[in-house]
């Protein structure tokens, strides 16, 4: 689980996010925001948090969370090779490749 960097709510109640909180959340999602968009998004996010705050009023004690409709369980398949080598087709759509590798800026100095 990730840490948003924002202060945890005192009693589970939603806190109002400020521009620094939004900066921390955006960093977790690897989205860059200038000061102006941070302020705008803080306002937007607070409106959404006010909307979803009503969930607090619902008594959910003892209610099992429902992650999935119809309680679907994942199937197991036979342990056989099903994929062919499609390296060329899959790399043809990549921004930058060389010699079968995806190229990115240097990571190790």
């Amino acid at each position: 689980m990730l840490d948003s960097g924002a202060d945890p709510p005192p009693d589970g109640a939603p806190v109002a996010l400020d521009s620094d909180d939004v900066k921390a959340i955006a960093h977790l999602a690897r989205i860059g925001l200038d000061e102006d968009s941070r302020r705008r998004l803080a306002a937007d996010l607070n409106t959404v948090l006010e909307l979803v705050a009503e969930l607090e009023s619902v008594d959910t004690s003892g209610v099992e969370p429902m992650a999935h409709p119809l309680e679907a369980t994942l199937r197991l398949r036979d342990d056989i090779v099903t994929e062919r080598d499609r390296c060329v087709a899959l790399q043809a759509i990549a921004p930058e490749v060389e010699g079968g590798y995806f190229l990115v800026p240097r990571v190790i100095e």
Partner: protein
Amino acid sequence: MSAALHEMTLAMQARALAGGACSAVELAEHHLARVERLNGTLNALLAVGADEALAAARDADARLAGKGEAPGPLTGVPIVHKDIFCTSALPTTCGSRMLDGYVSPFEATVVKRLREAGTVLLGKANMDEFAMGSSNENSFFGPVANPWDTSCVPGGSSGGSAAAVAARLVPAATGTDTGGSIRQPAAFCGLTGLKPTYGRVSRHGMIAFASSLDQGGPLARTAEDCAHLLRAMAGFDPHDATSSTREVPDYAAHLELPLAGLRIGVPREFFAEGLDTTVGDAVHAALGELERGGATLVDVSLPHQRHGIAAYYIVAPAEASSNLSRFDGVRFGYRCDDPADMEDLYERSRTEGFGPEVKRRILIGTYALSAGYYDAYYRKAMQVRRLISDDFARAFTEVDVIAGPTTPTPAFAHGAMDDPIAMYLNDLYTVSASLCGLPAMSLPCGFAGALPVGLQLIGQPFDEGRLLGVAHRLQASSDWHERVPEAFERASDTERQGEERARS
């Protein structure tokens, strides 16, 4: 043939093809000419593959003439796919700059099945970016106009699909529905659209938004057309881990459902505050028509329905923030220019590639899943999801289907919903069935001024046949689904000459 080709429903076109009254090439040419003439006004289609379509139409004609593979019920009918479905011949953008120019190395199962059923793919339909939106105003490729009133939105996120069918550019289109994205545009554009039970239609090759909610389904003019399309689209797919192994019924055989003895639940929560009175009146009139046909209306209660929006706007963004982390500028999709380092590559590719609503939802989801907030938001939302689902299960012990409005209002003007919450409230009646994985459809049931109104039907899991049956009964005794937006009704002189040439 008395009717112009585009005036025929998908089922009528299929019968005309089977009977030799027209050819697949004529149908493709006719509809491509309409696309050429009318798509500029609508912006409903993002890509058109005329050459591929004509080649597919020639194959279909050969099949219909007894050469090669035996024809299927959809052989030769033109369709378009929402641009969320991966196609190998045409680009797949998902309405995003992130995937501008992306051509998928594989084909979605829905696309493959409909191709094998003989449909002729004309193009790809515009949509809200990554299916996030209720107005189609969030597309990187521009908004779509509603054919009933071009100053209004067609709904979303399958807005391009709905506008294309309503303007008779094609008789049918595919869509996807995560919180209402098939049903709401169907309601706004006067169409019949079906979101199947979760797991009924394969999600393979359908770009993921919220994986526990996403379902593909048809948008067409009638329940009969949806029955034929769903039959072709549905079925087990080993490439989708949550695909159902249940057999796919012959939905067309369910259309002649007797209404006598049918119990229709009318949840009082669907008619509470927030519902436009004209919409409410049209829905009540349709329910009255079903009652006259022999059905019994039963007052039911879904007490947790009102928390649907709140639960949905936690669950869907949470899943989206996870799903959309795959767009990192490395393996496919948009990459920023001259990245300084790895961090810069990720961050700027995502910042420049995603639009504002997508960013907003990624941030909501990231926050809801972050340490210290997970229990307060995500876990809580999943518990409320269970309570909403229990309400439906209880109601379905008393009734066979549940009916109410699809949307609180008819289509609104472009730019009218300027804050995110107002936009989210459009999904008031549609998110509950999505959260619970239930099949649900919208069909036209009247007008509010010049704009269509949709009736929503919600069923028990895998009971699509019954929903289609109820819709078909209503369409047999009403003509709302036959109305055509005036500006898009007529064939142009060129189209008419083309048809005359084709017939002579």
